[in-house]
């Protein structure tokens, strides 16, 4: 045990240690309290809903291939189109993007990165997964009853008068909200109280900082969505007269309530993506992250500033002009911490030894796409230009650049980065890179034309359009098909790795955070002892072993830590 070892490698787990195999049978998954298995189940869930939402998106794009509508025909064509874009939005937002990184990757990674054995409340964790499932069931039943055509925002008064299944969908979103709250709560407590000795706040990987900031938003903002949707249900069933103008309610109030959650929710979607990119850029550039504290603090700053700007979604809704000015001004402040992050990532890459691995390809496209998405946001935050661009394809393109170009790309990057850790298999790098290139090209082909469409006045959510927009719309549709192929390709790359992939070493990328210190896949107990905590971005001791084709960490021999209790104040005090 105390023999001198110069290279530290946990090797491979045995079947009894491996969290995937240490117990078997369907029940061992259904009732598992292991955060890694829960994370994996979430991963399957969010990918399934992404597939559903993605197919709906293809339906939208195919319909718009022709100015008069191509995909859906008949008298109900426009109604079907309305339902398809609504469900696309609602499924993507509530079932995919919000839980994608925090719940799927976060669940897997947070305790391991922290060096903890599990999240603070494993049962709550499992129940939040099942809440997610229930929410999904509600959405599916909305789909199969009378659909939903309100748009994912459920604006009143339309949502109180339409005869589609608003109640089912809002109940679904309500339940999903609680799933999200419990995940966030769990992570805050885990990060606060479960850090092993030595894991100080500023030794935490930036992904954990981002998750922490996300969790703050989840805990603070999501309950407001809960009450909003509950009041909406009450409005529909009992006409309580809060949101419905027919009974002296105020629809603008609904929008205030809704966006008080839903703007911060945008940061629930993008902050964990920032966290992933911070990890990816640093690890694959093999260089210490630049401006660690700036990135860490900017996550928290975004989380808090995100609560001050919700009104920018309502510039044309009839707010008072003073309110619009205040919200517009505050909106610009959020761009500061986001820009800080981008500059720090670029500075990290500068003079790094960049390995252009699949995750790094995604990380680089993230920086590119997110920058476009962020900068186009400035036009929408400016009152004068927003009046022109509001509810046009410009908005659609903007938030797809942030949500897809940002969150989805980061999610894919994260999945490819941690895939070897999660399943213990390496995928084919060449094919992975080709897929990421296809995704990048397809994405830009889909959404760049939409900026032009929007600035020329093409309104969003229309089932038909003026023939002068046909060329751009067709470009966008072909781009969407290419994007779909790229995503399918990426999926196939991952699936083939399960069957044919090489066994992954513990540290396939040369990362220094704690998840690389345990085997791939990790044992069910994560760490047999609280791991040694060092700088998460110090790559000096990590070397490529060309013979074994893996990274090993080399270290001078060290002594045992003294056996007595350290004097420092426990972390959770």
């Amino acid at each position, binding site marked *: *045990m*105390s023999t001198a*070892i110069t290279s*530290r*490698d*946990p*090797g*491979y*787990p*045995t079947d009894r240690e491996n969290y995937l195999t240490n117990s078997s049978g369907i029940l061992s998954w259904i009732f598992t309290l292991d955060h890694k298995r829960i994370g994996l189940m979430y991963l399957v869930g969010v990918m399934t809903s992404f597939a559903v939402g993605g197919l709906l998106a293809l339906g939208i794009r195919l319909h718009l291939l022709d100015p008069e509508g191509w995909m859906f025909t008949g008298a109900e064509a426009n109604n079907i189109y309305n339902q398809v874009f609504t469900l696309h939005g609602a499924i993507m937002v509530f079932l995919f993007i919000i839980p994608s990184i925090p719940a799927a990757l976060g669940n897997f990674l947070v305790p391991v990165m922290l060096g*903890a*054995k*599990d999240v*603070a*409340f*494993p049962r*709550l964790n499992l129940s939040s997964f099942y809440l997610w499932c229930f929410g999904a069931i509600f959405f599916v039943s909305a789909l199969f009853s009378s659909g939903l055509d309100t748009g994912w925002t459920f604006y009143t008064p339309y949502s109180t008068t339409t005869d589609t299944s608003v109640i089912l969908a809002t109940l679904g979103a309500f339940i999903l909200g609680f799933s999200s709250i419990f995940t966030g*709560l769990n992570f805050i*407590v*885990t990060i*606060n*109280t*479960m850090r092993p000795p030595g894991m100080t706040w500023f030794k935490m990987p930036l992904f954990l900082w981002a998750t922490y900031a996300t969790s703050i938003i989840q*805990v*603070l903002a*999501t*309950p*407001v969505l*809960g*009450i*909003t949707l509950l*009041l909406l249900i*009450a409005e529909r069933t*009992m*006409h*309580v*007269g*809060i949101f419905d103008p027919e*009974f*002296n*309610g*105020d629809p603008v*109030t609904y929008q205030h*309530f809704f966006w008080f959650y839903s703007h911060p929710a945008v940061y629930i979607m993008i902050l964990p993506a920032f966290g992933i990119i911070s990890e990816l850029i640093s690890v694959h550039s093999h260089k210490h992250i630049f401006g660690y504290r700036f990135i860490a603090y900017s996550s928290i700053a975004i989380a808090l500033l995100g609560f001050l700007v919700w009104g920018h979604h309502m510039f044309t809704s009839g707010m008072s002009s003073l309110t619009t000015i205040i919200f517009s001004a505050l909106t610009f402040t959020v761009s500061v911490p986001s820009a800080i992050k981008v500059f720090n990532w670029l500075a990290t890459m500068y003079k790094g030894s960049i390995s252009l691995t699949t995750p790094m390809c995604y990380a680089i496209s993230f920086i590119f796409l997110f920058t476009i998405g962020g900068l186009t946001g400035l036009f929408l935050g400016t009152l004068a230009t927003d009046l022109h661009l509001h509810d046009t394809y410009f908005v659609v393109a903007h938030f797809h650049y942030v949500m897809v170009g940002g969150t989805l790309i980061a999610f894919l990057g994260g999945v490819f980065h941690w895939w070897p850790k999660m399943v213990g298999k390496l995928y084919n790098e060449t094919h992975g890179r080709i897929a990421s290139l296809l995704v990048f090209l397809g994405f830009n082909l889909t959404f760049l034309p939409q900026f032009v469409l929007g600035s020329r006045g093409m309104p969003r959510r229309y089932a038909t359009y003026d023939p002068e927009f046909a060329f751009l719309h067709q470009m966008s549709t072909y781009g969407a098909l290419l994007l779909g192929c790229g995503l399918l390709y990426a999926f196939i790359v991952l699936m083939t790795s399960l069957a044919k992939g090489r066994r992954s070493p513990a540290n396939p990328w040369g990362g220094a955070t704690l998840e690389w210190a345990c*085997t791939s896949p990790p*044992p069910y*107990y994560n760490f*047999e*002892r609280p*791991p*040694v905590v060092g700088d998460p971005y110090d790559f000096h001791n990590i070397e490529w072993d060309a013979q074994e084709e893996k990274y090993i960490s080399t270290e001078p021999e*060290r*002594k*045992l*830590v003294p*056996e007595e*209790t*350290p004097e420092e104040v*426990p972390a*959770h005090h």
Partner: protein
Amino acid sequence: MRFRLILRPHSEPGGFGRPANWFTFHFDTYMRGRPNSGGSSANGFRHMATIDSLSSESETHDEHGHDHDHPAWLAHHFDTPEQQFDSGKLGIWLFLVTEVLFFSGMFCAYAMFRMLRPEVFEGCSQFLNTKLGAINTGVLLFSSLTMAWAVRCAQTEEYKKLVVMIASTLSCAMVFLGVKSIEYSHKWGMGLLPPGSYFYDEANPHPTMQQIVDQHGFSESTAYFLTHSLYYLCAPFALLLVGVFIWLVYSKVTDKQFQYACAKPLLVVCLSFFGGVGLGMVLESGGEHSEHAVAHVDGEHAGEHGDAHAEDHAHEHGDEAGDETHAEADHADAVVASAEGNDVAIELLAESDLNTGAKAMLEAKQAQADMATGQIVPPGVEADLGIHKVERDVQTKRQAGVFFGIYYCMTGVHAIHILAGIGVLVWLLVRAIRHDFNRQYFGPVDYVGLYWHLVDLIWIYLFPLLYLIR
């Protein structure tokens, strides 16, 4: 404290390097039964670890690591009871944060509509019975006291007292719901509902089922529900009561002591609901029967009744308008009304006023008649009260309904929280009877307590905001 290695050898073939102490519970140490000297009802229960065995064990083991310091109640991923407690505590505080924000939406809506239409809120608030609200406030405050006391008992390991305290908290919760169901059913019968279904007609505040169907266009079954809502509200609790009673008898007969010990306090808890209903009825000065009688009377003499009312109160009781909470005043009103009105309808009204919920309506009118804003005038008498005509529409579906919409949302969501609280408190009660808690593991009591206090805290604001608007 455990020791740590900086360098960790791994994956010796077949070697499961993890130390047993991280995952193995030492049930033998902590679960061994010791007769409990204190509680007679505790004999034969599962968890018998008394504090003596617990503390001595943990203290001895603290000296040389945590190998055996993982009692059953300490989850495997926590190192110490304190870490577990702190995690839970932070978790519940965060949950309370979400609760605060959850309610904030409704408080925001309340503030907005009160700001937009203060006269509606003033006028409609008179329909809420301050006496019932105040009693419920007292009940919740008392339940907070017993809850805080219960936490103390868990910390000091006074098991019997702990059970008593949790049971009294539960009983208070039930009393609260009982009083609440009187309030609700009374308003539903009068049609004081959210704007979608609001049908209050002050000329006929207690319509019969048939009238609800004929005049307000409700279906038969809805009308039946509205006029008999108290039965519907009580039914689940009555079923619960019967169920618990059967359980009690069954556990007694089959000599299942633990179950018997659980069922006993729960029976009291279920009975408390009906205690609350009774209390509500007394304070509402009247019960089911008289209410129907009044509805009947009102229905027959609605016309005169309404007129007489408005005039009486507008002229005679202006000064006392605000004091609707005092039973004496009501009494006096009724007498005055009957003396002056001088016809059959008024006499009947006065008679029934002594024992009916119509009282609240009477008070409401009286108070409103005095207010420059929010005047309520029945059709046909506006000539007497000309200056108030502008505001006469306060009491219509779309005006008053907004107040009641918010009222039902706020109190309804609060009541749902009370129900949820009852759920977790029952769980706590069972565990308390099982002696699950000790001075190192009292977290669940504390957490439920915090939740319960928050529910109380919200009511502390709801009460003046809804019941005491002037």
